[in-house]
């Protein structure tokens, strides 16, 4: 790597005259880069300016004239990021050079943009559909592509509101179902082999040893497999038990969050964010409210800031507990450790239920605050948990598992990722920190009131499975530290700085709000045009981006290690497929 240029202000326009210009649209910021110079600009940003971590790549359809690809990169040393965009006319074929050679972490995100927007990335190593299947008709996130149950562009739908009439979407569709087909389509004449392109990308081999021909075996793990934590699938080529090649296949839980999110009003999206990472609805809400609050330029009520921290950290604790429990499941200690984990989780869910009304889908944040204050007695419960019970239980897990010989021999030395590769592949969260990179959004670019608390960024150095387990215990302990301070410091006062309202006014512009979710950097990229609905609502899901390097992590290891690697990666399908 070349030496970094220490610049206070990054001026791309001066560095690349004629090929980069400031984005001057009201509410927008940073840079618009010429398509032909994209690779050069990206390389410069990474090598000279030190923006080594590509956070997210996404498309925006400015119907009817242009498409935009938005990139945002951060420094692993902390601080704000740089946002740059490429604009292309909206005429097929739409082509943009791929940045995957510069930041390999862009690989799946570019595939997603191809799938949903139909933007081709030249020089991309493996450009296939990722969430939908090969052969699907159309690119669904384009503004002029309408789903079969389409009624109108924005909610609330006129057919139902304000009269409250009941309308069945099925009645409006000619197929009486969520279906649409091209004109004169004949299902018996189509020949589709959606799986062929997948199997073509797998690296296969045949060897002849002593006259005996040895062939590869292809194993499909998933979409229904107990180790994949949901409907994830991996196509694996094996040599004996050793993994030769592996391709993740996803989209089995693609619930069209982003398309639905663009129809919803800003506030209607809040309960949908709950269902992304369904273990941590409390932290999912936060990323989205951060982004919209940035756009609205409002402050959050003081007490609400503390409530947000308390709920998010409790959420992190139960997430890591479940991870440890389920990891032991995957290792073969069937369900006993998971029972211990669920016992503590129930206590935390009790707090969520008492406060928000539901156990899992809390829908707790509002722009400017939270929806409800703590009911009587709940603060005492939280205090009891964080001062007494949870520290004890963290020690109990430690005693039970950390020194266990079978556990250690299975986990120690099985490398998941080293620091350099982890950064290249845009991995964030505990997996990155277990590899030795002290990058935590709570410290790198503090949001909310995290700058007021005294805590350490948990860090391990080996990047093996064992460190990935240990770092979860470390983080539980740090979260308990934060909670102990937050419970002590929380002031009385209102829980929302705004009046409760059904529809919020959001000025035009773009905003990216990111938080350190238990699984990594969770961000929301929201574009408003000043209307009641967001023009673009993109989720930067840590599970999805962390999985990009799965093949690199697994090749050369045993198939049984793949199960454990997937376990410590902590994917959740609601977020991975969105």
């Amino acid at each position, binding site marked *: 790597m070349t030496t970094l240029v220490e610049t206070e202000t990054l001026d791309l326009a001066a560095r690349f005259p004629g090929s980069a210009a400031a984005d001057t649209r009201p509410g927008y910021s940073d840079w618009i880069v010429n398509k032909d110079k994209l690779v050069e600009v990206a390389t410069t940003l990474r090598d000279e300016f030190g923006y080594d971590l590509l956070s997210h790549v996404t498309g925006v359809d400015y119907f009817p004239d242009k498409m935009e690809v938005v990139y945002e990169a951060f420094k692993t040393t902390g601080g704000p990021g740089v946002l740059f965009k490429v604009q292309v006319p909206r005429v097929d074929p739409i082509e943009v050079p791929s940045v995957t050679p510069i930041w390999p972490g862009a690989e799946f995100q570019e595939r997603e943009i191809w799938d949903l927007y139909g933007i081709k990335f030249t020089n991309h190593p493996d450009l296939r559909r990722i969430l939908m299947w090969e052969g*699907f*008709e159309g690119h669904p996130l384009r503004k002029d592509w309408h789903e079969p149950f389409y009624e109108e562009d924005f909610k609330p739908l006129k057919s139902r509101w304000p009269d409250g009439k009941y309308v069945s979407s099925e009645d409006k569709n000619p197929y009486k*179902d969520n279906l649409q087909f091209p004109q004169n*389509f004949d299902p018996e004449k189509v020949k589709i082999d959606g799986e062929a392109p997948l199997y073509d990308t797998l690296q296969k081999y045949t060897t002849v040893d002593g006259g005996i021909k040895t062939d590869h075996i292809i194993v499909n793990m998933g979409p229904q*497999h107990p180790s994949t934590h949901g409907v994830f699938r991996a196509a694996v080529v094996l040599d004996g038990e050793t993994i030769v090649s592996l391709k993740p296949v996803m989209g089995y*839980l693609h619930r069209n969050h982003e398309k639905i999110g663009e129809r919803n009003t800003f506030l209607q999206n809040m309960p949908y964010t709950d269902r992304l990472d369904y273990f941590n609805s409390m932290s999912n809400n936060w990323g989205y409210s951060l982004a919209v609050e940035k756009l609205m330029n409002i402050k959050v009520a003081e007490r609400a800031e503390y409530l947000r921290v308390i709920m998010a950290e409790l959420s992190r604790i139960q997430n890591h507990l479940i991870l440890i429990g389920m990891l032991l499941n995957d290792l073969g200690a069937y369900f006993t450790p998971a029972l211990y984990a669920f016992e503590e989780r129930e206590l935390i869910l009790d707090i969520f239920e008492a406060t928000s009304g539901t156990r899992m889908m809390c829908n707790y944040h509002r722009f400017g605050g939270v929806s409800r204050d703590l009911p009587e007695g709940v603060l005492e419960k939280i205090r009891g948990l964080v001062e007494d019970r949870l520290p004890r239980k963290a020690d109990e897990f430690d005693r039970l598992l950390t020194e266990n010989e079978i556990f250690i021999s299975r986990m120690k030395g099985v490398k998941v990722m080293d620091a350099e590769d982890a950064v290249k592949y845009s991995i964030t969260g505990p997996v990155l920190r277990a590899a030795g990179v002290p990058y935590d959004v709570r410290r790198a670019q503090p949001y909310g009131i995290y700058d007021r608390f005294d805590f350490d960024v948990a860090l391990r150095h080996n990047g093996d499975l064992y460190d990935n387990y240990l770092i979860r215990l470390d983080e539980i302990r740090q979260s308990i530290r934060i909670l102990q301070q937050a419970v002590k410091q929380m002031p009385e006062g209102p829980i929302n700085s705004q009046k409760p309202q059904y529809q919020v006014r959001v000025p035009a512009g773009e905003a990216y709000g990111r938080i350190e979710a238990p699984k990594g950097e969770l961000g929301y990229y929201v574009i408003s045009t000043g209307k009641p609905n967001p023009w673009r609502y993109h989720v930067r899901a840590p599970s999805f981006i962390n999985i990009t390097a799965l093949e690199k992590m697994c090749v050369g290891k045993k198939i049984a290690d793949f199960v454990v690697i997937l376990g410590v990666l902590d994917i959740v399908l609601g977020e991975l497929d969105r």
Partner: protein
Amino acid sequence: MTDNKELNSPGYEIPEDLQHAVSITTIDRLYNWGRRWSVWPMMFGLACCAIEMIAAQAARYDLARFGMEVMRPSPRQSDLMIVAGTVTKKMIPAIVRLYNQMPEPKYVVAMGACASGGGPFKEGYNVVAGVDKFVPVDVYIPGCPPTPQALTAGLMKLQEKIDKESIRKVRWYQKGADSVELPIPVLGPDLMDPRRYNEIKMLAAKPAEPATESKA
């Protein structure tokens, strides 16, 4: 164990000295009683609801009280498919295949709003509005997600349903019942149900109405 009364309501008078030694019951009752307490669910989670399903299995809610704690990852060994989560078009071929692979007698519980009718994601282009469009459902459980208590209540409903079965009438003892398999949907330009090929062909040949003209 359950009280013997459940089995032992014969309608015949049993002499008092034999009451602890002799039971008179019907085959149906014995058969249903045996099965209702040993329903093995498939370890099959789709989305958020699966987490509540696991919570129902875990310490506090303890489904083992109903003989349902034996989760089988293989469809070949399970009696009950709890469709726990949003059913997508990409996933439905696998779900139908799993259903076909389950041996009779088999039951399906649609857990949550999504599996029952599409739920909050119904309008999504990749979402199947209810698993009952493809596999027969025995019990629907509302909620998003249903709490473990609601799941337990739904499973008790299933037990009540099992109680009402008669060995003479159940479908899996009918002639040829084992060979009945549901056709597996195909992923084309959109999801294609083989049972509806003719209908799709006919409707697609019609001139586009404003509602279908959406594709640009």
